[in-house]
């Protein structure tokens, strides 16, 4: 019995030892598994996890460069930066946006327009880290929020540089504006491989010089390597690379001249481009009405946007650049020059003007009832005789017209240094073939050439093209690329990168022909259609008036300004350069729906020339442009 018990005991002990052994083996296996895991993580995957830990630890904080300034030729600031506090929400870190904004209202004032703008930004700037709910906080508001900050996780105050256009709507189409980077901008930035440089940048040039010189103005983003904790708080700075500020743009534009020009338009819509013929530098670039570019900087609120976008005056359209108008009679000097150069007319050759020109059963009428009588080339320009040019057009033929006049840049982009230029239409047989689809529409009819001869018909050019053409004429056929920027200034070392005047091409013109045209255009301003506007001018000048039909006038129907709705009235045009010998300025003016060029457009040109050549301001001159207050 005792033996059995002992054996039992032995067997039980043996069993226990077996199980302890199994347990021990399991322990070893488990620890071996851990060891394998450690080797995997710490040896095989070491590089991956080390990088992960570094990414965790080190945050690259971009430091935005200061955007370059835009200054006029005399140093007046057109666009600058100022620093202000904004209240920004990080949508990703806020659970209930509406509630947060409602709560914020108890701390700082939030207007309905702020809410609307925030909503718009939410849609536009998808994925942005933080978006402003309020901009330009007062010191008091900053302090008030700072006290309540703990209540608003995901909401913070940021000191930001803001773009400011101190002259408001003056030259707004030239400077353009910056706005928040949207998805389309992002795609463009990606495509240009500039993503790194736009880290931390919220704004980008949207229109005008702000857009076309974005790369110069933006500068190079610096960055700071900051060690951060898990909450994203910076613990210490590891290294810092300073940003390189953007370059300043110094324009050829004279902002005082620009102001004179803009004021000369009064409430009229239209455009004016003034160019220095010997360089192509643009002296004034007007598109009326303008707009206040400051509205766009922190994201325009929907109400202001609707107002600008839906206004029948279309203030956002850059008319000088993208508006196309028939040149009307301002086309005639080029027609006359074509006739001389191609040997179709001599200055002395006369025609008899009965007040109309019959062609193919259609009567093309002259403005002057009864006609101008016997007309030579000089008289045809000075009195702006249509019949002369109906006939000339017919004699030259459309393709000769297109070929010769195209040399002056009509119907082609000028290559100016802002984007959005319209091409316009220089009609020709080829153009018509390309323009229309149906064979019967593609055919050029000789009758169509007649209207082209007086600058009507399919003719459509931008005011910029018209100015480029008259500047080319003023410079005896030498055509410069028009440009707004005079030089680009490196802020740090003061180095200037000059935008060299660039000759596009020179038109070979006989000096005697040029001499004649010059004399005839001078005659316009002394004894012709421009004489009243240029009465008692203290300088010599060349000019040509024009009136462009907006709607076609039916046969036998007399155009009557009073009976036509305002929007259907003729556009008034004027081209000019002065002084006559060695011209310093050439310009083109279009005043929309203002009637006769002589009455509405020529006086604007006169004011601009008076100011530019004599420094004379019109009597009703408004407030002085504030001087250069510098950048803050």
């Amino acid at each position, binding site marked *: 019995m005792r033996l059995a018990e002992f054996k039992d005991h032995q067997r*039980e002990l043996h*069993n*226990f*030892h077996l*199980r*302890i052994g199994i*347990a*021990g083996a399991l*322990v*070893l296996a*488990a*620890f071996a*598994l*851990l*060891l394998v*895991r*450690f*080797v995997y*993580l*710490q*040896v095989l*995957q*070491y590089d*991956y*996890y*080390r990088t*992960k*830990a*570094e990414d*965790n*630890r080190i945050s690259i904080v971009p430091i935005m460069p200061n955007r370059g300034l835009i200054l006029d030729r005399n140093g007046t600031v057109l666009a600058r930066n100022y620093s202000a506090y904004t209240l920004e929400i990080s949508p990703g870190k806020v659970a209930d946006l509406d509630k947060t904004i409602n709560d914020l209202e108890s701390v700082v004032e939030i207007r309905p327009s702020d809410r609307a703008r925030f909503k718009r930004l939410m849609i536009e700037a998808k994925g942005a880290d933080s978006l402003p709910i309020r901009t330009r906080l007062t010191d008091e508001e900053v302090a008030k929020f700072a006290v309540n900050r703990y209540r608003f996780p995901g909401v913070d105050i940021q000191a930001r540089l803001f773009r400011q256009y101190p002259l408001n709507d003056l030259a707004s189409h030239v400077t353009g504006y910056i706005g928040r980077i949207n998805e389309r901008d992002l795609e463009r930035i990606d495509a240009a491989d500039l993503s790194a440089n736009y880290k931390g940048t919220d704004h980008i040039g949207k229109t005008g010089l702000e857009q076309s010189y974005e790369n110069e103005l933006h500068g190079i983003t610096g960055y700071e390597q900051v*060690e*951060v*904790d*898990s*909450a994203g708080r910076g*613990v210490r700075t590891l290294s810092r690379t300073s940003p390189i500020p953007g370059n300043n743009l110094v324009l050829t534009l004279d902002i005082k001249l620009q102001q004179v020009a803009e004021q000369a338009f009064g409430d009229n819509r239209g455009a004016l481009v003034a160019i220095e013929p010997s360089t192509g530098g643009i002296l004034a670039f007007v598109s009326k009405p303008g707009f206040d570019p400051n509205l766009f900087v922190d994201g325009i609120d929907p109400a202001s946007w609707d107002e600008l976008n839906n206004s029948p005056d279309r203030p956002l359209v850059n008319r000088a650049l993208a508006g196309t108008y028939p040149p009307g009679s301002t086309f005639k000097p080029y027609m006359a020059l074509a006739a001389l150069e191609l040997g179709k007319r001599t200055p002395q050759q006369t025609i008899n003007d009965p007040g109309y020109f019959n062609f193919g059963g259609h009567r093309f009428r002259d403005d002057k009832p009864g006609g101008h009588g016997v007309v030579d080339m000089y008289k045809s320009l000075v009195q702006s005789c249509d019949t002369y040019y109906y006939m000339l057009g017919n004699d030259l033929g459309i393709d000769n017209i297109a070929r010769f006049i195209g040399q002056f840049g009509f119907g082609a982009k000028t290559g100016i240094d802002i984007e959005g230029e319209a091409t316009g239409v220089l009609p020709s047989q080829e153009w018509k073939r390309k323009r229309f689809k149906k064979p019967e529409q593609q055919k050029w009819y000789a009758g169509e050439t007649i209207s082209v001869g007086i600058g009507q018909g399919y003719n459509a050019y931008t005011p910029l093209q018209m100015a480029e053409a008259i500047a080319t004429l003023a410079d005896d056929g030498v055509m410069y690329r028009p440009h707004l920027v005079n030089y680009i200034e490196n802020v740090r070392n003061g180095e200037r990168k000059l935008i060299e005047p660039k000759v596009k091409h020179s038109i070979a013109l006989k000096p005697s022909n040029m001499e004649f045209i010059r004399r005839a255009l001078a005659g316009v301003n002394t004894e012709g259609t421009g004489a009243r506007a240029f009465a008692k001018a203290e300088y010599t000048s060349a000019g040509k008036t024009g009136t462009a039909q907006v709607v076609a006038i039916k046969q036998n129907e007399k155009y009557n300004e009073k009976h036509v709705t305002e929007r259907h009235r003729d556009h008034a045009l004027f081209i000019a350069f002065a002084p006559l010998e060695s011209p310093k300025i050439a310009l083109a003016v279009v005043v929309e729906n203002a009637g006769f060029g002589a009455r509405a457009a020529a006086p604007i040109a006169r004011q601009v020339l008076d100011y530019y050549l004599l420094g004379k301001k019109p009597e009703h001159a408004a407030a002085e442009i504030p001087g250069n207050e510098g950048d803050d």
Partner: protein
Amino acid sequence: MIRTLWLRFTDKIDPPLFMLALALLVLGMMTLASAANDTPARISSQAVNILIALSVMWAVAQFPPQTLMRFALPAYALGLALLLGVALFGDVVNGARRWLNLGITRIQPSEIMKIAMPLMLAWYFHKHEATLRVREYFVACLLLLVPVMLIARQPDLGTALLVAAAGFYVIFLAGLSWRIIVGLLLAGCASLPFLWSLMHDYQRRRILTLLDPTSDPLGAGYHIIQSVIAVGSGGIAGKGWLRGTQAHLEFIPERSTDFIFAVFSEEFGLIGNCLLLLLYLLLIGRGLAIAANAPTFFTRLLAGAVTLTFFTYAFVNMGMVSGILPVVGVPLPLVSFGGTALVTLFVGIGILMSIHRHRKLVQT
């Protein structure tokens, strides 16, 4: 005289166990010094915890196993009563009902069960040593399951796991037939869907997160992702003591308690991990040796279960931190900050010492 006193004092202390435990405590304090850099109070507080735990160990080691056996039933009954008390009147902290307020102090009764459970089952099997049948194993399972369910319901999955493991080890070592073990394993697998349906949302999430931590990188997966990054970025030699970036920049959650291994691993690398594994292995080996040489059925079972529970702590914690086990609240034994777990662990070590030193006295 003094020498005699010292000998009397250290008589019951097993030097290998004590040295291994001490080595782990030193590593623990070093890691805590790094992990608790923003809460320095924890370092002195842990020193006090260690002194208390060592005193308890010493005291427990003085009792012969027969005395311990007498505690088994009362301790288990008390533990069970307190667990019921928690279920009915417990304080809710962090969404879990784990604490019982006794007026003077709050206690966590589930902790008692970590010791009471193996004690109770070892005693039970010892009592029925001569007549072990299926019935005894069945009763033992019931004795195990009731408190485990109560703890799991609190919910405290980590403690439930440890208590269940401790009880299971006793039953396993007591000779539960392999057929039943295999059967239980199969049944366990089969009941997984049922267990799943019983789980709390956060528990399910932890398991899903283990399978794919990146599915919720800022939520439940964050802990695992960050601790695995800490471990991996430690490399072979580690970033150096006090130089763990994951730890010091607060990327590691609970870095002085349950996730302290991430801090250790980041700063001491694979070499440190191997050292830690070795120390645990030696300590467990010593415990299993004590169990193998223990004189009675009770002491064998108790020593084996206590040792394997210690292993469970270490394995589950390191497995969780290195991302191969789901996140459950199990501290790294002798290293994590926290007095309760430390005392419980040293009670276990005290028991091992008692069993080892008294083995001759029990022998007939």
